[in-house]
């Protein structure tokens, strides 16, 4: 298996593992880490396509995605701090005020 095929399959695998972490875990911080893992899979796909197609636009987009992921995790973690203060925990089965 050549390098490009290996890395394309790895990027799909990373996306799926992020999705699995998001679906299996009840802990909001690990769910947030799953989202980071999915974004890393996308980044790897961008960079590998940039290498395959001899175009730097993929690497440019990967840089912008890294910046957006940093902003997303800062806002997400401060939301979790707020949730922790109001509910006394960040498990998704503790925060059920909006459940009908």
């Amino acid at each position, binding site marked *: 298996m050549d*390098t490009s095929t*290996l*890395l*394309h*399959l*790895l990027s*799909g*695998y*990373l*996306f*799926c*593992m992020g*999705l*699995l*972490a998001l*679906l*299996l*875990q*009840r*802990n909001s*911080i*690990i769910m*947030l*880490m799953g989202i*980071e*893992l999915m974004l*890393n899979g996308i*980044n*790897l796909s961008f*960079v590998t396509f940039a*290498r395959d*197609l*001899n*175009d*730097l*636009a993929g*690497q*440019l987009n*990967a*840089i*912008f995605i*890294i*910046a*957006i*992921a*940093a*902003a*997303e*995790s*800062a*806002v997400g*973690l*401060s*939301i*979790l*701090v*707020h949730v*922790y*203060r109001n509910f006394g925990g*960040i498990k998704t089965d503790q925060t059920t005020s909006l459940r009908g």
Partner: protein
Amino acid sequence: MIEALTLAVVILSIMMILAKNPINSAFCLVILMICLGGIYAAIGAHFVAALQIIVYAGAVMVLVVFSIMLMNLNETRSSIDLRSPSVLLAVGATVVLLAILTISFFEWQTATLKPVSGPYTLEAIKQLGGNVFALSAMMFAKGYIQFELIGLLLPVAVAGALVLAKRKVD
């Protein structure tokens, strides 16, 4: 080299999901980010590799570990029950998605209509002075609007995080 890093990433992602303690899974993710940075460096994306180490393995994961410490989450949880229907559904959906991604990648690889190859071959990048120089020239020639928008987004995100983390919003 890339094969070893790929193997490490595969194993660490499974360890991250199955770890009993949130801090263990955070550390698995840190090592995974560093391995991904190694992969980026090995395929010639040097600037992305540096940013991966600095932003992801540095800033983002420090924030995550700090939050875990702040929320006192060091209780271990029971292991995932593999026979409950929601877990089976989640694993099934993930396997289906992985199959779809793999099949569509091999379809793309064997497609008759090949995409046009860009001008930035390894020799062209070397002529321009290396990956970082070529990337920065391209960023300020073609991607300056996105660059300015990201520059706007980051202060907004910082302000939002500060307002959300305050104890009372007056």
